[in-house]
């Protein structure tokens, strides 16, 4: 792919990026991989990296959503009752915890909203910054 083609594609994607409300988008096309980042307004919250699954056009439900990411490396334990896509949260609640060397690191919804995606399953290993849930505010 020539640089011109890459630039043209990047421009097209940049539009889609702004529309979709994503802060970051990583695209892989054969040997070419590039990442687009939206300039963040001062005072705005910076969402965690978007997982490949959420960049998929077939997942419009993840648009304009807050991503709740893990801030440790460990094993996900979903808090009961386990949240599912479409569930409305009245306020802040614990969604899961990530277990790191026997320590429970709680993952909270940080407010009310509708769960639009659950990216992890019970007992799944996760890394730092890995999205766990998407919440529509």
């Amino acid at each position, binding site marked *: 792919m020539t640089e011109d083609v890459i630039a043209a594609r990047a421009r097209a994607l940049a539009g889609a990026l702004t529309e979709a409300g994503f802060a970051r988008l990583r695209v892989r096309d054969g040997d070419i991989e590039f990442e687009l980042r939206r300039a963040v307004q001062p005072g705005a919250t910076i969402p965690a990296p978007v997982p490949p699954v959420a960049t998929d056009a077939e997942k419009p439900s993840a648009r304009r959503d807050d991503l709740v990411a893990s801030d440790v*490396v460990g094993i996900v334990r979903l808090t009961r009752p386990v949240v599912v896509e479409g569930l409305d949260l009245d306020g802040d609640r614990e969604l899961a915890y990530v277990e790191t060397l026997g320590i429970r690191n709680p993952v909270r919804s940080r407010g009310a909203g509708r769960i639009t995606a659950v990216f992890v399953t019970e007992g799944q290993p996760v890394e730092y*910054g890995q999205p766990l849930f998407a919440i529509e505010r």
Partner: protein
Amino acid sequence: MFKKVLIANRGEIALRINRACHELGVATVAIFSDADRQSLHVRHADEAFCVGPGPVMRSYLNIPNIISAALISGCDAIHPGYGFLAENARFAEIAADHGLTFIGPKPAVINAMGDKATAKRLMREAGVPTTPGSDIVASVDEARAVSEKIGYPVLLKATAGGGGKGMRAVTGPQELPTAFATAQAEAEASFKDGRMYVEKLMPNPRHIEVQVLADEHGGVVHLGERDCSVQKPSHQKLIEEAPAPVLDPAIRARLHAIATTATRAVAYTNAGTLEFLVSGSDVYFMEMNTRIQVEHPVTELIYGVDLVKEQIRIAAGEALGFSQDDLHPHGHAIEVRVNAEDPQNNFAPAAGTLSTVVFPGGPGIRVDTHIYGGAIVPPFYDSMLAKIVAVGRTRESAILRMERALGETRIEGVKTTVDFCRELMNEPEFRAGGIGVGWLPAILARRAAAV
């Protein structure tokens, strides 16, 4: 042998360890920070875990996340590389508590050697000559008393020190109070340990170190010495070579003998390096580094031994596959550190995107690096981008080869030490060999005065 090793490092050494593991048929797990997501070590490893954001305290020094990554990926050992957690005894203990083998010496030995004043005392007790000086001094007055006894100039050093931090040269008593206060503050800030000791400052000594390997069955060998006298004013090494040029064979033999004796005396295991100051016919033990060192390739190239593989084999409980009589150096090797630094501006570190990256090749050249064209040099980490190593049958051929290789090297996007080191290859005193640690600072001072 281990099944899977977590590499608790980044940059070229993470790649170096990955290569050794793969050649041994061992699977690898890389760790990386948010800033290193596109780094080569992440791509080379079989698995990779992001352990935190860019700043090292939250990623490459984040012990819970690193141990957790090792456990959930099913590793049985951790290789710490150099820097970061390599000489952190607590990390080695925590790893062991979780059933992970730390590829390095035992925690008690790391602790003893990591505390420079303790290391000197242990070596003295083992009959190893150490620089005249003191144990821990509690105050400026105590430091002054010691300094008067051994005579100025002296070196104030932090017992937890390393990399030139917490260290001050003092030429007379009037400088002592300020030097003591600033060095101590630096040590407190860098190592959370402000304990200081005093050492006699040698006039322009050579920095010569000896590589050792010790298995867990009593086998100890040395792999000769390296001369690391080309040091920046900050005492950081820039060019290293093996063997040490123009060294009296009697002194060389003495260094090797002291190194193996000392290694046995402290019941050392795995790869280690004993650093000495050599001044005339005097030899003084400075410190022992309980890790693989940056400059290990020069030893590998002349001895034909893969030191990182040996580290892994030793940690897995294997006995050394060779004895001292099997080890014979061939030729001469020189390493140049390619740093993202501006030699015209006190080696100020630089960060940015590398637009062009072209490394040398051809006979006798080895390049250990993690960079590539388009790679980003984050601001959070050590500025070393690559190590270019040249080996030749003679020192002269290695120097000529290095000069040629540095000429082929093109790195654009940040300032580097490439051209500066190429110039140094042509300095008559370097060509002659046997320079001391004051040589490079003197060259820099001369150039500054000429401008």
